[in-house]
C-alpha cells in the first residue's frame, strides 16, 4: 500500500480486539491505522506462551504470577507508543490464536484486527502464522491490515 495516500479503514462501532507481539513491524502497522480509524473501543491483547505447558510432575511450577507481571509491564511500556489509548490492555497465556479468539468472544467484539506480519511470520510470506490461525479459526470478522 502506498504510504503517500491517506488510508481509509472500515469503522466498527463496537469493541475491536488487536493482538500485538511487541515487534517493530507490528507497531509500524498499527500506528497509522489507529491514527486514521474510528474504533471507539480498542482492546489490545498480548498472548504469552505458557511455560506451564512444559511442567513435569515433581518440578516446581514456574511462578505464573511473576510471568504475568512481566508481560503486563511490557504491555504498560508499549501501549503509550500507540496514537490512541486502548480501552483495555490484556495479557493471556497459551495458544495465541485460540486466546485471541476466546477474548474476542468474551467481549463480543465486532472484529479482530491483525497486523498481518509479526514476530513469527516469514517476511516473504507476508502474513504471520498467528494471523493466519486467527483468520482460519475466528467466529467473527477479521481485518488484516497488511503492513
Amino acid at each position, binding site marked *: 500500500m502506498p504510504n503517500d495516500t491517506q488510508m*481509509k*479503514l*472500515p469503522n466498527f462501532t463496537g469493541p475491536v480486539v488487536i493482538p500485538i507481539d511487541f515487534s517493530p513491524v507490528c507497531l509500524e502497522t498499527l500506528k497509522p491505522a489507529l491514527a486514521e480509524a474510528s474504533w471507539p473501543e480498542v482492546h489490545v491483547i498480548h498472548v504469552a506462551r505458557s511455560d506451564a505447558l512444559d511442567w513435569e510432575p515433581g518440578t516446581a511450577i514456574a511462578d505464573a504470577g511473576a510471568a504475568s507481571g512481566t508481560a503486563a509491564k511490557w504491555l504498560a511500556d508499549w501501549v503509550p507508543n500507540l496514537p490512541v489509548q486502548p480501552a483495555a490492555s490484556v495479557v493471556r497465556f497459551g495458544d495465541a490464536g485460540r486466546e485471541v479468539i476466546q477474548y474476542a468472544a468474551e467481549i463480543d467484539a465486532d472484529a479482530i484486527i491483525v497486523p*498481518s506480519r509479526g514476530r513469527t511470520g516469514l517476511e516473504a510470506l507476508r502474513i504471520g502464522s498467528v494471523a493466519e490461525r486467527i483468520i482460519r479459526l475466528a467466529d*467473527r*470478522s*477479521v481485518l488484516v491490515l*497488511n503492513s
Partner: protein
Amino acid sequence: MLELKGVTVVVPVDFSEACTTALSGPLTDSSADNIRLVHVVQPAVYPAAGDVVVAAGPEAERMNAAREQFERYLKEQNWPSYPTEVLTGDPGTEVVAFADRIDADLIMVPSHGFHGWKRLVLGSVAERIVRLANCPVLVLRRGDAE
C-alpha cells in the same frame, strides 16, 4: 457494527448462498457508498508458455454469460445498486489486481465460515487474497449477517 462510509471497497462475489448470506448485512447496513462488486470467471484452459491461443470467442461468451448471471443474481438481492465488474483469470490474483487498479482502500471477502472441508475448499480464494493484497482485507463471517 461495521461502517464503510467513504471507503472504496472491492467485494468478490461468487453467487453462492454462503457468499450472499455473509455479504447481505455489510452491504445493506454499513452506509457503504463506494462498493465495487467483482466476479472472476476462471478460464477454461490456462495457456502454457509457448501455446498459441486460437479462439478467444468462447472466453468472451463465458464473460458475457457471467455478466448476465451477475445481473440476475443482483436482481434477486435486496442490496443497493453497486457497480459490477467481470474479470477472468485466477480469482485471488485478479481481485487483488483490480483493487490495485482502482486504488481501493479495502477488499471485503465473504468467508464461508463452515468447519471442516468446506471451509478449506471454499476459503482458499479468501486466503489467497489475504496473502496477495496490497491493502487491508476484511474477512467476513457468516455470523455477521445473522
